[in-house]
């Protein structure tokens, strides 16, 4: 109806033509009449026209009539809706609050998902961008820095390959790689920042224009040019306080000095949504910034693939042609690198409109789960509000019946109901939109600092459109029940029912009870899922680590990136350790290249001396300082741990864990045996001098696996160290001391990531914690909403049956019997709902199985606990009105009747 009117309003052209014809007909007829009276045709026509008046004016008035009538009816509906909402403020507030929270929650989850997975890059014509990738199940013998996914796709290429590709005529190609935790020195202050290496044409290819100064030009990407750096807008604000004087300033990154030439535009974050590059430096400086690669220049070697590419086809070039041309070059360049028959690599292009958002694929599943859960909450809220509106609709049934009897169209009444619920939903949606921003920020903040996502949660049309769509959907859903009730109602029964105490209860209970059952079912489903996540998190937190993290403070230094040689690094490490040991409350200090259970791993293959050469099982490695196992309380099973004997020039020794002994030494006596590790070109042999109990390695979720501990002085990765200090008392107070000590000894080395071991382990569980926190919150909200719904239905039934209860009591029924009656009645809603919810839970929780740890989706404890909680809450919700029923005074109840 609205739509017809709307169309009529905009189809004014046709309307005018029709009107003209109508008017012409009228004037012609009138003129003919005058002619019959004897006037000349010309005079008759003139007179008819005069009589008719101004056609223009008439046309205007018809238009006005059409438009005004339409506006008027909309206005009326809105006005009536508002009046009804204002008439019952408690209901309105309850409805807006629950719908608003649910819509806002849904929008908030969407906003984060949008930022991570959907939103296009803030660059010119992002839809044109392509990202080269390659696929292989048996990779060529190359070193790869960058990302690859579970499907064996990688986006990293060698620099030589990039240079070759870039000559292709049909495309503008730029390179990009993240430089995490670079050490920066700005105006004398040391810190860390996440930067990116980019080719000189990077900003030009993407079509990004500077906020201040200039961005890179092709010439910047040359070791012959002065080193330049571009800051992100965010970093410029944070570190330079938006000072335009930052242009021209010097900034040291990993020991290399760069001159700031410009600031990237505000929304530009880099290539991967959720990660923010603080600064950009030309890719050619990689060797200076990452000294560990100096042995083989990353710019010339074809064995080290590290640059991720993004391209924009030139006008006229098709993606297919581009793929063919680049693919042929790729095949030719990869051929010499294939050393074994099984190895291969096939080239592909993927769309790059969202940058490297595909690297966020890990987030897809948690987001799908969260979205599903929050939509369930929304459905519960909708059915709750529908129930509230039904209850009020019942009170208004007489009015509706009267209007129907007086000839108002049924459609018109339905429209009125829908207008009302849509208004309610849109008001809730507007509130929800504000809540969504807060909620999205809260979601992001659930992730601990290091895995934090940085998203611009500013205004987005997509989020607004989503919010609006959800609100409209919720409005229609909410309006559905009263509309159905209305379409079912017959005028006669409604009018008749209007004479009894509670009009129209049949309609209300007809839909109200199933709605509550649906709420019960959905909230049980939510409770089971939340329960599974909570238990899973609990299992992860309780998983035995194999060491004791209590009372241990960790912090990291990165002397290698700070320009230290291996020998300088070793000396600095020992100096810092020795000084820290003298701090009060510190009982032991040790270090390792990186910490256990920190998502960092160093894997290689080992060969036990005396075993067949072909047998090269995988093994985890970790270089540790003296006292490492003692400080972490890893029990020694045999032999000894490292000490001052195991210096750089001493015979190379190793400590292995029990898994290593069991899997690779086949029960032979471990001490005195040797194994070799392919650390560089030649295998290096280590003699086993000790065996320790198993510990977790990089991740809590992985089972214990073979680990070989090497002496840090004898062999270490070009990174770290991470210190571990055993302290007594409050570990949190130490951070100032640590920073001061390190600063005194090594002024150019920033201290990073001061944390307790417990905090670091918690960081690893951030996804699990977010899921269990949010799903529990959703579960609680769902349960409360369902309880309110149940309470409403039972209270209503009790009120309706006051007379009946009075009769029963008067006839001698005990109060207990009345109580039972009411409770049994509510059980008829709760039990079927719970059964359906249980079936749904059993069917649906299989989808979260891969995220769970240490339990099945059919975990009986979770299911029993969820059902018990649901029944307890439902019991309370039903008990309150039941008690009121039992407390009815029979005399008064009968008098009312």
């Amino acid at each position, binding site marked *: 109806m609205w739509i017809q009117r709307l169309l009529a309003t905009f189809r004014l052209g046709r309307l005018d033509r029709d009107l003209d014809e109508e008017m012409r007909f009228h004037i012609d007829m009138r003129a003919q009449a005058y002619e019959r009276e004897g006037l000349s045709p010309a005079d008759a026509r003139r007179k008819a026209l005069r009589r008719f008046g101004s056609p223009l004016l008439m046309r205007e008035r018809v238009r006005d009539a059409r438009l005004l009538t339409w506006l008027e009816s909309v206005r009326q509906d809105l006005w009536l809706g508002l009046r009804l909402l204002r008439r019952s403020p408690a209901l309105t507030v309850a409805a807006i609050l629950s719908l608003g929270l649910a819509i806002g929650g849904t929008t908030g989850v969407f906003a984060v998902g949008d930022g991570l997975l959907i939103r296009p890059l803030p660059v010119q014509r992002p839809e044109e961008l392509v990202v080269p990738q390659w696929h292989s199940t048996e990779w060529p013998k190359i070193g790869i820095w960058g990302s690859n996914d579970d499907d064996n796709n990688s986006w990293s290429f060698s620099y030589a390959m990039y240079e070759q590709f870039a000559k292709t005529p049909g495309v503008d190609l730029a390179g990009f790689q993240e430089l995490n935790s670079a050490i920066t020195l700005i105006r004398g202050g040391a810190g860390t920042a996440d930067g990116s290496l980019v080719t000189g044409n990077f900003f030009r290819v993407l079509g990004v224009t500077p906020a201040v100064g200039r961005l890179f030009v092709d010439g910047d990407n040359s070791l012959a040019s002065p080193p330049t750096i571009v800051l992100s807008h965010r970093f410029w604000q944070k570190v330079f306080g938006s000072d335009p004087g930052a242009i021209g300033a010097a900034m040291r990154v990993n020991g290399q000095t760069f001159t700031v030439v410009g600031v990237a535009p505000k929304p530009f974050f880099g290539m991967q949504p959720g990660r923010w590059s603080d600064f950009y430096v030309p890719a050619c400086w990689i060797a200076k910034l990452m000294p560990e690669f100096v042995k083989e220049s990353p710019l010339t070697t074809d064995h080290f693939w590290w640059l991720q590419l993004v391209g924009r086809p030139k006008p006229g070039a098709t993606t297919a042609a581009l793929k063919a041309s680049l693919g042929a070059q790729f095949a030719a360049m990869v051929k010499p690198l294939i050393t074994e028959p099984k190895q291969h690599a096939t080239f592909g292009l993927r769309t790059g409109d969202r940058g490297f958002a595909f690297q966020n694929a890990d987030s897809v599943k948690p987001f799908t789960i969260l979205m599903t859960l929050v939509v369930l909450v929304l459905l519960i809220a909708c059915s709750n509000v529908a129930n509230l509106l039904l209850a009020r609709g019942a009170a208004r049934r007489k009015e509706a019946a009267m209007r129907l009897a007086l*000839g108002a169209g049924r459609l018109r009444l339905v429209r009125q109901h829908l207008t009302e619920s849509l208004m309610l939903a849109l008001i809730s949606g507007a509130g929800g939109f504000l809540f969504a921003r807060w909620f999205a920020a809260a979601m992001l903040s659930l992730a601990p600092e290091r895995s934090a996502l940085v998203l611009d949660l500013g205004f987005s049309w997509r989020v607004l459109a989503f919010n609006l769509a959800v609100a409209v959907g919720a409005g229609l859903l909410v309006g559905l029940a009263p509309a159905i009730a209305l379409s079912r109602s017959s005028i006669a029964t409604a009018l008749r029912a209007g004479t009894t105490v509670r009009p129209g209860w049949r309609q209300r209970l007809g839909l109200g009870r199933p709605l509550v059952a649906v709420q019960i079912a959905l909230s049980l489903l939510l409770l089971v899922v939340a329960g599974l996540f909570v238990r899973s998190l609990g299992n992860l937190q309780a998983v035995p680590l194999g060491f004791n993290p209590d009372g241990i403070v960790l912090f990291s230094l990165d002397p290698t990136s700070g320009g230290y040689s291996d020998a300088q690094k070793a000396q600095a490490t020992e100096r810092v350790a020795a000084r820290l040991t003298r701090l009060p409350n510190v009982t032991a200090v040790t270090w390792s290249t990186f910490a256990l259970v920190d998502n960092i791993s160093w894997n290689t293959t080992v060969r036990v001396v005396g075993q067949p050469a072909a047998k090269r099982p995988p093994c985890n490695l970790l270089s540790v300082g003296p006292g490492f196992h003692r400080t972490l309380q890893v029990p020694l099973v045999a032999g000894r741990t490292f000490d001052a004997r195991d210096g750089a020039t001493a015979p190379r020794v190793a400590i292995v864990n029990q898994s290593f002994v069991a899997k690779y030494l086949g029960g032979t006596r471990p001490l005195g045996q040797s194994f070799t590790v392919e650390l560089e070109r030649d295998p290096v042999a280590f003699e086993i001098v000790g065996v320790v109990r198993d510990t977790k390695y990089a991740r809590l979720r992985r089972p214990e696996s073979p680990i070989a501990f090497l002496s840090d002085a004898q062999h270490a990765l070009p990174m770290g160290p991470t210190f571990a200090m055993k302290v007594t008392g409050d570990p949190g107070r130490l951070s100032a001391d640590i920073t001061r000590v390190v600063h005194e000894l090594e002024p150019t080395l920033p201290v990073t990531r001061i944390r307790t071991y417990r905090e670091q382990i918690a960081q690893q569980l951030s996804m699990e914690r977010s899921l269990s926190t949010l799903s529990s919150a959703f579960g609680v909200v769902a349960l409360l909403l369902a309880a309110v719904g149940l309470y409403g239905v039972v209270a209503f039934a009790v009120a309706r049956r006051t007379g009946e209860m009075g009769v029963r009591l008067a006839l001698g029924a005990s109060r207990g019997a009345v109580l039972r009656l009411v409770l049994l009645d509510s059980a008829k809603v709760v039990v079927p709902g719970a059964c359906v919810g249980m079936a749904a839970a059993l069917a649906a929780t299989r989808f979260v199985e891969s995220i769970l740890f240490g339990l099945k989706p059919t975990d009986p404890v979770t299911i029993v606990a969820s059902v018990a909680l649901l029944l307890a809450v439902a019991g309370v919700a039903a008990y309150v009105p039941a008690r009121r029923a039992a407390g009815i005074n029979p005399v008064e109840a009968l008098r009312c009747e």
Partner: protein
Amino acid sequence: MPKKPDNLQGALDLLILKTLASRGPLHGYGIALHVESVSGDVLRMEEGSLYPALHRMELAGWVRSNWRTSENNRRAKFYGITASGSRQLADEERNWRLVVGAISRVLQVT
């Protein structure tokens, strides 16, 4: 339904509805002609107002229209009264009589 402060417009609606009720579907010119002849030319319809009124009433659902061939074989838009229009007519007629009765009583008193 919207209140119409304009009394004349109310009268116009009433005349149109009554005409359509008694004569069946008619085009605008026919309505004008009928009102003139029945009222003995006392009520001369302002023709420019007739069509806006018809369109307004159509939107209100009181009349419906369709294009048909007229008695002299020309295409013309015919208007017919609807059920809701009949109820409206009854309402307005009652109102009108009430007002007229009241006014004449007032006139008799003075």
